[in-house]
């Protein structure tokens, strides 16, 4: 790639950085031909891993939901931490959702699927809200609505987790 004189060579990603980024990206590539993973939820290994993930995720969800719903007097620094926790918690939850769906009993599968659909709808609303904030600026009302959307999304995750928790 032809480099503009503004960029110094040290600003390009190193091969190690490129590899590290690619590894993260590769994990999340869409796989159209992905076959359903057949795993028995009673398997000792899966059961233990899922239980640990569920405990961590539930703690994260509860802490973050509480932070989101306890008023606006939070200091800027704690809000930054809150968003970091939120992003990290929802990222983890999104990663384990397919596993939860696979391991869920037939009775709870439809309810989990409808909650996943609801989360996708909320994600779309969050995206639209963020775009609006980017274009038209941030107002306290918009910030509040965005927080409510995040909180609702977390509620849905919590319900998915609780549905599965009963089976483990």
């Amino acid at each position, binding site marked *: *790639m032809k480099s*503009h004189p*503004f960029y110094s060579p040290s600003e390009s990603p190193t091969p190690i*950085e490129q590899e590290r*980024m*690619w590894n*993260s990206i590769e994990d999340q590539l869409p796989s159209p031909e992905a076959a359903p993973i057949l795993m028995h939820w009673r398997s000792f290994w899966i059961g233990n891993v899922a239980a640990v993930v569920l405990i961590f995720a539930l703690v994260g969800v509860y802490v973050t939901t509480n932070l989101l719903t306890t008023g606006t007097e939070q200091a800027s620094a704690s809000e930054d931490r809150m968003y970091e926790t939120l992003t990290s918690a929802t990222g983890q939850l999104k990663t384990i959702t397919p596993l939860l769906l696979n391991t869920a009993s037939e009775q709870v599968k439809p309810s989990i699927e409808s909650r996943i659909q609801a989360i996708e709808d909320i994600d779309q609303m969050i995206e639209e809200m963020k775009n609006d904030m*980017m274009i038209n600026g941030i107002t306290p009302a918009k910030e509040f609505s965005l927080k409510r959307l995040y909180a609702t999304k977390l509620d849905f995750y919590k319900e998915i987790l609780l549905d599965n928790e009963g089976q483990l």
Partner: protein
Amino acid sequence: MASRSEETALIDNALSGQQPAFKQLYELHVEGLFRFLNQFASNREQTEEWTQRAFIKAFQKLASFKKEARFKTWLFTIGMNEMRTDMRKNIHFENIEETPEAHGTQEFSNEEWMTARSLIRKLPNDKKMVFLLYEVEGYSHREIGELLDIKEATSRVILNRTKAELRQGLQV
């Protein structure tokens, strides 16, 4: 650098599930996106985070990419959105109503670019973004208007003001 048709073929292959095509698209664009986003990050870890999130989103939504657009432009838009989402103080562009100057200021020489680096890094994010997109990444004012959702004239005015500011800084 791949031609437009080669890139379109890569996108088609990726859409049909050929995993190596994703890596080729990544290798074509990772350096450019990383270097650009790095101008706004406080450390390289942050740049890595924005870059990988931009690629993940772009690849997951590849089916919605309109092939008449440039993939790089689309990827940069996603990358900038990821970056702006994380910024507590969002980058705000005021729509400027004044008429842009008819004649832009003259181009920077290679030597001036070297000297101007530190000045450019200190620019406010809105000015830095327009300046880098136009001067370094080669986008037109119309494209910048679409990328940042601002008027074309606003992009011109911001660029002219930024260049004048930089020239002044270079003379000090």
